[in-house]
């Protein structure tokens, strides 16, 4: 009988359709099953084994040479088997074959519990999965979906262009007069930057980098008070401390005229085609027609102190003036029917609390004037000269010495003195700060924009001229604008 049991064992082990839920039967288990009885058999095992166990308890292994000699229910690995274990084992074995009573309420309760705990009805289903080596992604593979889905869209990232915080160039400007009320910087449409250093006027060629001394005052004690290029860029008007206005031909480096009309130094100049307006410390503004011998054709009176800011609008309809008396005047342009010497200003604004030297007209929006106040005011004010109202006011925290509109990106640039000594770029019309250009060690006195609008030149009390290339246009955009401009000009030509 023992040998049958053993044979059955071997057969059972060798059968291939047996479930391999556990490792192959442990040696001690095999021994135990052949000799007496075993512990809890695995559920998948056939009934054969349990039968052999029950059959052979009486037969001591001593007779069978192949089986290890041991006591009842034990072998050399587990010498003593607890009798209770055998009872439990046989009880469980027999119970497994009993049919389930579906009407048993306790059982239903149990079933409900098991479903909720296990997530499925244990009695009805079993869960299988294909065993084997776990399949994982190759080493080092990181789920890069995160990158894909959290990437910011390019448009929202590139809102502002790169504005360099250092100047493109620094030019030395020794002996520059650190006088707030003078206008010693101007950039011509032919790309020549005119800088007045005390009694000299130097021209810096921005395309070639050459410096030319245009003129020098005759008397040592006199100094230049203002410079202004004509629209074409071939003539330069120079205001001096000896109350005169000189007109120079730059190509031939010759002085064409010296005009006398003022009774005080000529602090500001502005061109309107052939009309040159000049303003002096007396507060008077004179219009000169440079083509005629009797050049002084008009006088505007309004300011009571030095007029430091003077700007004609791009369309030539208005003249804005700002003075040390904190007033901003807007004067009408000279029409054909101008009457006598009487002058009536269109607007007179006294909102500023400081000297108004900074004045700028918006080149792309008509009738918009920006003005900036001095130390006690520090505000930029934007006016509509049609309605006469102040559109917006912005506190810049510093004395404003100069304002310039930069059309390339529709921005307003302000030059500051006390206390920051910097240049600030503001988005127009929202007046949100775009960038701050710091570098000057003393108050910025003047700003001038290059003819292509890409660079702003600043002159300051630290005797330097700094060029900031902050408005460089994209080459693609440049092409587009050029195309647009060319087509629009064609249209203008044909329409009569």
């Amino acid at each position, binding site marked *: 009988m023992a040998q049958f049991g053993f044979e059955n064992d071997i057969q059972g082990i060798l059968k*291939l*359709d047996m*479930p*391999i*839920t556990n490792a192959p039967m442990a040696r001690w288990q095999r021994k135990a099953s052949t000799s007496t009885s075993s512990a809890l058999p695995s559920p*998948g095992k056939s009934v054969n084994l349990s039968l052999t166990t029950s059959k052979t308890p009486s037969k001591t292994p001593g007779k069978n040479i192949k089986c290890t000699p041991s006591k009842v229910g034990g072998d050399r690995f587990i010498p003593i088997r607890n009798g209770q274990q055998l009872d439990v084992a046989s009880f469980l074995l027999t119970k497994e074959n009993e049919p389930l009573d579906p009407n048993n309420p306790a059982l239903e309760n149990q079933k409900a519990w098991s479903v909720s705990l*296990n*997530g*499925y009805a244990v*009695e*009805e*289903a*079993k*869960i*299988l*999965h*294909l*065993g*084997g080596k*776990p*399949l*994982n*992604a*190759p080493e080092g*593979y*990181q*789920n*890069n*979906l*995160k990158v894909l*889905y959290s990437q910011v869209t390019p448009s929202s990232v590139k809102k502002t262009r790169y504005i360099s915080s250092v100047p493109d160039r620094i030019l030395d400007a020794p002996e520059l007069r650190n006088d707030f009320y003078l206008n010693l910087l101007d950039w011509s449409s032919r790309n020549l930057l005119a800088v007045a250093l005390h009694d000299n006027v130097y021209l810096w060629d921005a395309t070639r980098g050459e410096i030319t001394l245009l003129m020098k005052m005759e008397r040592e004690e006199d100094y230049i008070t203002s410079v202004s290029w004509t629209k074409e860029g071939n003539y330069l008007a120079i205001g001096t401390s000896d109350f005169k206005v000189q007109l120079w031909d730059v190509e031939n480096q010759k002085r064409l005229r010296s005009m006398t009309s003022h009774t005080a130094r000529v602090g500001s100049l502005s061109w309107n085609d052939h009309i040159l307006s000049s303003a002096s410390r007396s507060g008077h503004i004179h219009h000169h027609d440079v083509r005629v011998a009797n050049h002084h054709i008009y006088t505007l009176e309004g300011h009571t102190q030095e007029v430091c800011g003077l700007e004609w609008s791009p369309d030539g309809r208005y003249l804005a003036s700002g003075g040390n008396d904190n007033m901003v005047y807007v004067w009408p342009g000279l029409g054909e029917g101008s009457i006598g010497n009487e002058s009536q200003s269109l607007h007179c604004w006294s909102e500023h609390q400081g000297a108004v030297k900074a004045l700028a007209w918006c080149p792309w929006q008509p009738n918009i004037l920006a003005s900036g106040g001095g130390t006690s005011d520090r505000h930029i004010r934007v006016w509509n000269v049609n309605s006469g109202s102040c559109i917006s006011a912005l506190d810049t925290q510093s004395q404003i010495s100069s304002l310039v509109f930069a059309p390339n990106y529709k921005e307003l640039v302000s030059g500051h003195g006390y206390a920051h000594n910097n240049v600030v770029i503001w988005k127009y019309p929202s007046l949100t700060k775009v960038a701050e250009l710091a570098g000057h060690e003393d108050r910025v006195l003047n700003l001038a924009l290059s003819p292509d609008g890409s660079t702003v030149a600043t002159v300051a009390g630290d005797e330097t001229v700094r060029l900031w290339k902050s408005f460089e246009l994209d080459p693609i955009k440049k092409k587009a604008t050029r195309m647009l401009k060319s087509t629009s000009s064609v249209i203008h030509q044909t329409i009569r």
Partner: protein
Amino acid sequence: MTSTLKGITLKGSAELVAEFFSFGINSILYQRGIYPPESFTRVTQYDMSLQLTTDGKLKDYLTKVVAQLKEWLFDCTVQKLVLVITCLETNEVLERWQFDIEYGCGRRTKSIKTIQDEIRSVIRQITATVTFLPLLETACAFDLLVYTDKDLMVPEKWEESGPQIIDQSEEVRLRSFTTSIHKVNSMVAYKRTDSA
């Protein structure tokens, strides 16, 4: 057990469902980023382009499972198919895709085209779930579980396993499709993320 000639046979239905599982599992693996997207190739199925893996081992594994599934579907012994995604390091279950299978509903004959349309919408929905499922940031492993009848003979190499439920899960029920012999319901459960 065959229906009319116009309709579909059990064998055909089993094939359709098994095919759906094959493509569905591939799509899930691709969308959730369990395997690198470079290891997938595009194929056209159900009138849309789907991703199939080219990884040898993975392909083998999937073929085995799907073949076995087809058999069980034919025998009507499989109840559910579950795809479990676990974190590689912590062995925590992160996502659980469950497909329930019901049998013998409705004697309506359905054209293969209708069935394919339905399958297409389910797979499209699976792809769309990517928008709300939390990102799987750690490296993950996946496993396929099959819920079968209790007394089914377990084939070689298949082992028993637990249900691998997610604790604190959010569940989303997806569309179902039916071949008039088999009905497949889909749902996805994912670990609730604490962030708002």
